[in-house]
């Protein structure tokens, strides 16, 4: 069986859901005949036409608002931000309009906003950001960040079917680098469920998306040094799967949180806070974070690499924590 890349899994999810449900449609800049800069929608315009694969003008706020309008009357828009960094231009629509509608009106807002995010490719301060914490802090949004083609497929399908707004973070660095064999059929990954990717007994790593892979590499390194690391892929950030996280932390008694977003008030802080509250009695060491320094992402690749929370920094932090 051929391997499916992360981006192909995204395309498969879009295609399958559009086939399954006529109310699903795509919106975004350059997504129609061009298929988007990452070609996530390649072929779908030809198949479904201009009313279901809609090229918008160069706007974000208006596009989010229009998607909300359509969702209110029964459509299921899937909106692509060309890069996650541009979502800040549609911020108000997301945090004040989309996120608050169900609580206020009890009208469901089935809507997915796809955010190709993250660094590692030398794309500079405006094409490398990880904006999940802003949305995790906004009640009413489900924030997800799958790390594998399998979960990209299963979670995008689940997100499209869910009656709530989902912020869907796809790491650009994984698009063509991650591949795996995927069976046919209607594959779904439940939202709100973390995944224990590697079992271990000495330290728990909590991570998601690109840094999950770096964390796995670091865990493998530590295994060679005799330290058993449990690695959890959060997959969904809000709402958080506390059961899985707390059970693991209570077992290993040590936790390292790894994410690519800048450290201060990143989502790692929330994980640390819940653990410091709910797992206090089980902790045998400080709750540590490996994350991006509080800086914009520099353009030069070497500069960028020096800030990215990659396997070396994770390994070093793990070693320290294991010895603690």
């Amino acid at each position: 069986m051929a391997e499916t890349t992360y981006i192909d899994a995204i395309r498969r999810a879009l295609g399958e859901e559009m086939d399954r449900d006529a109310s699903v449609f795509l919106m975004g800049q350059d997504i129609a005949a061009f298929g988007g800069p990452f070609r996530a929608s390649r072929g779908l315009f030809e198949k479904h036409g201009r009313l279901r694969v809609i090229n918008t003008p160069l706007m974000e706020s208006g596009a989010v608002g229009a998607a909300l309008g359509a969702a209110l009357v029964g459509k299921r828009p899937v909106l692509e931000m060309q890069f996650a960094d541009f979502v800040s231009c549609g911020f108000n629509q997301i945090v004040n309009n989309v996120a608050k509608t169900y609580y206020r009106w009890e009208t469901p807002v089935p809507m997915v906003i796809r955010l190709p995010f993250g660094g590692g490719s030398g794309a500079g301060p405006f094409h490398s950001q990880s904006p999940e914490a802003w949305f995790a802090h906004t009640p009413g949004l489900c924030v997800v960040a799958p790390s594998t083609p399998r979960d990209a497929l299963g979670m995008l399908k689940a997100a499209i079917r869910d009656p709530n707004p989902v912020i869907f973070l796809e790491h650009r660095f994984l698009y063509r680098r991650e591949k795996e064999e995927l069976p046919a059929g209607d594959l779904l990954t439940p939202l709100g469920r973390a995944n224990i990717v590697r079992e271990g007994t000495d330290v728990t790593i909590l991570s998601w998306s690109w840094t999950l892979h770096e964390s796995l590499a670091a865990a493998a390194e530590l295994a060679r040094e005799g330290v058993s690391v449990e690695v959890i892929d959060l997959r969904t950030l809000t709402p958080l799967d506390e059961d899985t996280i707390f059970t693991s932390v209570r077992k290993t008694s040590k936790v390292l949180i790894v994410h690519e977003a800048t450290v201060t008030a990143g989502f790692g802080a929330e994980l640390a806070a819940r653990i410091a509250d709910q797992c206090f009695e089980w902790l045998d060491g400080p709750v540590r974070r490996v994350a991006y320094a509080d800086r914009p992402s520099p353009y030069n690749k070497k500069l960028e690499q020096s800030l990215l929370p990659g396997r070396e920094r994770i390994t070093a932090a793990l070693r320290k924590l294991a010895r603690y």
Partner: protein
Amino acid sequence: MVVSTHSKPPPPPTAVLADTDPRVLRRAHFFMRLSRAWDSRFEAMARVGRIGRWYSAVGNECTTVGTALALGANDSLSTVHRDLGAVLTTYLDPTRLAPALFEDGDQTAWDVLRPPPQALLDTLANQVFGRRGGFTRGVDRSFHYGLIKPEWGIRHVGMISHLGAMIPVAAGLALANVQDGTDRAVLGFIGEGATSQGDFHEALNLAGVMKLPLILVVENNRYAFSTPLSEQYACEKLSDRAPGYGIAGETVDGLDFDAVHAAMNRAIERARTGYGATLLECMLPRMRGHAEGDGSYEMIPAAEREEYLKQDPLVRFEASLLARGHADQQRVERVTATARDIIEDAVERALLTEEPSLAEATRPVFAPGEVATAFARQSTEVTGG
């Protein structure tokens, strides 16, 4: 009126209705009076501090009612803070609410679809007070709710406070209509101040490109909070922005019912027949301050204020009804009294209803499903709450 020739469509329908149908005028009169009666009651309560804030729609009635009356079942309505007239017009079957005022043939097919008017009016009054019986059961206020009931022919989207933000949403409602292949249109309202927001631009540009059946009515009452229009924009008419979006644009006297209604009918006709969007600016008198008692009214020069008070659209409308023989003085008084009684009753009833249940505060932020279930499982639901 300017229409884009960018994509070279045939000229849009421009026929002006010669004279408005008397049945429409009867409805209009009733709804304008209903809207005014509501404002009078709430302004009085605001003055004595019985309610916190009130954004008066006095002066806007001819525009809100004159445009909304052109809608049909399952057209959509998007309102902001001075559009009570449009809400009442869209929700209520007047022939059941005030049967004595209407003739047998006055009920429309849409009226029949609509639910009993009294119940809807009561819910609206409760809504405005933030009571248990309101659409949002106390969770949000006044016109900050949506009522999407295709089975009633009503698709109404209320506002968030962020002005301008609902214009793209209205465009999205119009987009859904296009996707569904219906001829249904969308009527949205916005103040002239909010036209300065980027969302105004992004939404109208989208409407132009996609030829969306959207009619955006600018209620130009010459002030935004304290800001006069000379500090808000520098064009001659806000409808001068329409050519920049390749959509139709008109500016009409928002006190002239026939002009408003005819312009709206032209816009609706364009929307229904694929000619796209219209920006319809209605010039209104600033008869009240921004919110009652917030000091903004005093910022308007006194002479200007007096001028505006003289331009009361109801006075003008009733004079024209009488002049054209569509009503006599007695009917005018009867409509006024009936409207006042209906509103008084609804308000009194609403004031007697219960406060919302405290449980509403923590009601779900997510619609039922996987996400909602996961949300409820979290410890922050207990410790942070």
